[in-house]
């Protein structure tokens, strides 16, 4: 059953009304989504963007602005990093606002307008978190406009109809833009009933991305493209070695390089401001910095740290008596798996364009965490947060890399030193050596089978570097309360809930370099380990891996949805347990952010190398706003996950993280990508779930399981290679 009733969390009582915005009448509607107030609000106000709004704790999360040409500007609290959120929000808003999709322009909300999402953008949550509040608030705004239209037209509100932003009734009509003129007091109705999903015109349709034109014709939409008058260029010296601390620097040669405006020495870094990018880079390379390095790290040091049994452990899942049963070695099956350090390697480097003036700072930046970026800049500059305006741009890739933005602070300090706007960004070596990496993992799995080939007990242990620890997004107190790393758990729990005894244990290790969110967090490695193990158990039980999986899943709500994606994936791919003509199929599945996903990879071996020919992907994210973009997310996640599973690995040699360039850090290219990807979408839930990350889960295991069936070799270590 679909949910088109207003949520209980939104009620008239909780609307916050702001009487004035500058000299123009307007209003703000606020609501609360979580235990802590996170504001999901609307502002419908009049005519121009020229009304600066100073934020407060009642700041709205979503602004609608109606322009004189009867268009609607939607200021999005979520950033567009390729996931298609601008398109999804436009579709949802257009349907409840009763405007044409082309009448809506979605833009990034600068922090000056106040509508920042404290959570940032990530975790496949953008559509799922805004689905209900955006519809409710858009519907409320439509009703407010209708009520005011009734006044202006002199007809009863019940006789009015709306289409394309024009309200009609009694033989008369008036546009939204005309309605809002001169109104300084609005009547706020109770949240109206939402339309039935079948009545939506845009939601559910595979419409083209709203940012397609900008991206095909090369418009300047990214952080790297931002410009300001009199802009200069910055660079910052970064160490090559892991754990190096800045001491001081000799800048004599650098100062004399033509084009250098100023060498900037701060307590924790040394940088350059110059008239061009080339001069800034040359001067940086001419600086000799001194670093304090306590230890020269090697890859094997890290591998020795990331071992199940070392570090702090916490039991994250427990049903029955798995630990007791698996203590006894009789009939015990165990396997170990590993995954390496992974780089984000997004193509747009990190950086920012900053302009710091006496009492304010303006920062253009590709960030996933507008609010955190703002507080960090304000703190370091000694400004109030409202004196810092963060203007988010389109992201040239996110993947979790834009959750940490200390470079915004550095760009601001360079600008402050010269009193002019400064654009600063990483070069590629700096990107690779100063990434916030996907941590390496080690997995130990244990199980026992009974005579009927059913699993009687199963256990997953994962050892991982930190994912969420150390992030400003997760308060330290919460991390200490949890005692382990939620991000490292992602995908680490056992979904085979019909097993009578199962448990999962997470082991936490602090590494000497930054590790963090990488699209899908622990899901990629955890699913690789668990689903490879399941495949091996099916072989040991002499069962078909699809039937084997289905038999171990409970028939609860999520279990039924998981079973359905498994069945459909097996059917649509014509899954065959046996290799035929040198091609084998591998099966794997997962549940992530409430979305079940199953994949079948068809694999062959060419010249000793694994080649993925086709992937069938079945996903059930619930209600789908844009099936074309859900497919795009699946296609991208499959190839990105395949790339990580088959090719990618950072290592440490004599203290240096390597490789430092694409190529040696091999990312799947068009040659490697499967020629065929079939995505099948099921919608067995009454609300939208996450899509951006779940399809990254199964692919590694699906490939490994195919290789096992083709060659007899079980691959246990990413990146997966033969011999």
């Amino acid at each position, binding site marked *: 059953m679909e949910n088109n009733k207003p949520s209980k969390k939104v009620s008239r009582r909780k609307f916050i009304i702001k009487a004035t915005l500058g000299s123009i009448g307007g209003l703000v509607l606020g609501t609360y989504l979580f235990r802590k107030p996170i504001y999901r609000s609307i502002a419908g106000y009049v005519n121009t963007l020229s009304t600066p709004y100073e934020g407060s704790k009642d700041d709205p999360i979503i602004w609608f602005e109606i322009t004189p040409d009867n268009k609607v500007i939607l200021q999005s609290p979520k950033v567009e990093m390729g996931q298609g959120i601008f398109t999804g929000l436009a579709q949802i808003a257009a349907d409840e606002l009763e405007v044409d999709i082309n009448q809506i322009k979605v833009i990034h909300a600068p922090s000056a307008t106040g509508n920042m999402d404290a959570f940032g953008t990530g975790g496949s949550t953008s559509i799922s978190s805004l689905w209900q509040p955006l519809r409710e608030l858009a519907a409320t705004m439509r009703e407010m406009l209708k009520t005011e239209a009734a006044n202006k037209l002199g007809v009863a509100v019940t006789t009015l109809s709306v289409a394309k932003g024009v309200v009609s009734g009694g033989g008369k009509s008036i546009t939204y833009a005309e309605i809002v003129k001169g109104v300084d007091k609005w009547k706020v109705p109770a949240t109206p009933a939402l339309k039935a999903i079948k009545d939506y015109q845009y939601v559910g349709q595979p419409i083209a991305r709203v940012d397609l034109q900008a991206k095909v014709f090369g418009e300047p939409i990214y952080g790297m493209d931002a410009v300001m008058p009199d802009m200069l*260029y910055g660079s910052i010296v970064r160490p090559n070695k892991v754990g190096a601390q800045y001491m001081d620097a000799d800048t004599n040669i650098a100062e004399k390089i033509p084009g250098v405006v100023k060498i900037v020495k701060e307590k924790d870094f040394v940088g350059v401001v110059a008239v061009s990018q080339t001069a800034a880079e040359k001067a940086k390379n001419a600086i000799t910095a001194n670093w304090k390095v306590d230890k020269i790290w090697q890859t094997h040091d890290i591998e020795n740290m990331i071992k199940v049994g070392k570090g702090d452990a916490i039991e994250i899942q427990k049903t029955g008596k798995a630990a007791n049963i698996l203590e006894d070695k009789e009939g015990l099956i165990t396997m170990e798996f590993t995954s390496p350090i992974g780089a984000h390697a997004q193509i747009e480097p990190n950086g920012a364009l900053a302009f710091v003036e006496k009492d304010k700072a303006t920062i253009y930046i590709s960030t996933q965490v507008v609010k955190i970026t703002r507080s960090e800049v304000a703190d370091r500059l000694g400004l109030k947060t409202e004196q810092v305006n963060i203007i988010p741009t389109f992201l040239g890739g996110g993947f979790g890399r834009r959750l940490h933005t200390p470079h915004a602070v550095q760009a601001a300090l360079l600008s402050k030193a010269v009193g002019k706007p400064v654009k600063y960004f990483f070069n590629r070596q700096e990107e690779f050596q100063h990434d916030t990496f996907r941590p390496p993992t080690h997995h130990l799995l244990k199980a026992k089978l009974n005579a009927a080939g059913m699993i009687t007990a199963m256990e997953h242990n994962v050892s991982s570097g930190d994912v969420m620890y150390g992030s400003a997004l997760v308060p330290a107190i919460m991390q200490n309360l949890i005692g382990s790393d939620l991000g490292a758990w992602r995908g680490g729990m056992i979904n085979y809930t019909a097993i009578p005894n199962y448990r999962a244990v997470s082991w936490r290790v602090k590494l000497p370099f930054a590790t963090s969110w990488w699209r899908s967090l622990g899901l990629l490695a955890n699913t690789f380990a668990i689903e490879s193990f399941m495949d091996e158990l099916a072989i040991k039980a002499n069962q078909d891996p699809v039937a084997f999986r289905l038999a171990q899943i409970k028939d609860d709500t999520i279990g039924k949805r998981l079973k359905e994606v498994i069945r459909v994936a097996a059917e649509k791919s014509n899954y065959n347990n046996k290799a035929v003509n040198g091609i084998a199929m591998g099966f794997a599945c997962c549940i992530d952010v409430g979305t079940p996903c199953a994949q079948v990879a068809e694999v062959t071996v060419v010249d000793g190398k694994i080649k993925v020919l086709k992937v069938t992907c079945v996903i059930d994210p619930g209600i789908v706003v844009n099936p074309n973009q859900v497919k795009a997310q699946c296609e991208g996640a499959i190839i990105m996950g395949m790339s990580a599973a088959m090719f990618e690995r950072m290592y440490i040699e004599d203290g240096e993280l390597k490789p430092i360039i694409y190529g040696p850090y091999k990312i799947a290219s068009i040659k490697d990508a499967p020629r065929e990807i079939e995505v099948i979408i099921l919608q067995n839930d009454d609300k939208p779930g996450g899509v951006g990350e779940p399809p990254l889960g199964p692919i590694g295991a699906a490939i490994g399981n195919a290789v096992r069936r083709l060659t007899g070799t079980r691959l246990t270590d990413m990146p997966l290679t033969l011999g």
Partner: protein
Amino acid sequence: MEININGNKRQVEITDTSTPLLWIIRDVLNLKGTKFGCGKAACGACTVLIDGQQVRSCSYPISQLKEQAVTTIEGLGTAENPHPVQQAWIEEIVPQCGYCQPGFMMATASLLNNIADPTDEEIDTNITNVCRCATHYRIRKAIHKAAAIHQSKTSN
């Protein structure tokens, strides 16, 4: 010096002849569609056409440029009159984050200048750019579609 770019002659002052063409395009001519990705010709985000052939402009010193015609994404086509490659990219809804896409489109335009109807193997060999959103599946479809659009236009 004079640069022949997107069909226009533009005067630019060059103070450092080692400056890569990329930065002249982006920072002097203010054409931002050509992207910086790696600075080592390893990713292709900075791909432009020089006399119709793909060049990774981050590693092409401005001193090498004489009278050749430079084409960037801004000169490939317009919304009103898109290049077949851009039309195909729109029809297949290729971009996600979109940052690498101008480089892919320029590399594809170069490929089609040399091979009107490339096979999958010719695509594999000639299109070596990096896309982190991993839009390769749609890129391949768009390349074939661009070839078809181009051929139908030239045969008419």
